[in-house]
């Protein structure tokens, strides 16, 4: 791993197109800003890891077993679910 020391307001370049700005340091938290081409997906690693795992399971590639997915889809009769988030509940 490459380790660099940077001050608030300073920047690190990753290749030609990606800038990482150190915006603030508050206690043990560092606030970073990113400037990158739109093709670059920027995510917190824990979000990335969880999403990748879920996508891997949902993404059907050639290696997966040939279950009759279409038949399964045709048996499905859905009902709508209420997913109102609970953040506002008291």
């Amino acid at each position: 791993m490459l380790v660099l020391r940077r001050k608030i307001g300073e920047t690190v370049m990753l290749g030609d197109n990606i800038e990482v700005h150190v915006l603030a340091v508050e206690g043990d938290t560092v606030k970073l800003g990113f400037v990158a081409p739109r093709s670059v997906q920027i995510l917190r690693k824990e979000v990335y890891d969880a999403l990748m795992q879920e996508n891997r399971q949902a993404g059907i590639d050639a290696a997966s077993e040939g279950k009759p997915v279409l038949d399964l889809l045709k048996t499905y009769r859905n009902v709508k679910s209420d997913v109102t988030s609970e953040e506002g509940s008291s």
Partner: protein
Amino acid sequence: MGERMTLIRSDRYGDLHVAEEQIYRFEKGIVGWQDIKQYALIGVEDTPFFILHAVDEQLSFILIPAEKVVLDYGFEIDDETVELLDAKKPEDVVIFLIVNIIDDAFYVNLKAPVLLVPRSRAGCQYVIHDRDYPLRFPLRRREEAGNAGP
């Protein structure tokens, strides 16, 4: 007639002939396969489901329009994504959920829906940050709701 069709030779679904307007560009790819940029959206007959199939790879996802399965599902889309998708107004964006089938049970990913803009034929998997939605949300079937289907 005379419309340009693309042939996807899918190991799973057989030969899929897709029209140009069914092909979406995912500039950021999909997490796990960020190098794959071109996907085709194909409806599954007699079901509310769609197949999102990579044009040049044997990778596919099952999608369902969010409006078919969830109520009161809403979130803010950040400016970068609006720009990426070239969406001019909120109605331009169609929200799909990725379906995950585990042991014949259906789940949808509410945390990271697939957004498609038909007019610009751009798409992305968008991670919702302003609301706390689950990555794996079980879909109820009608039988389970005590209302046997026809």
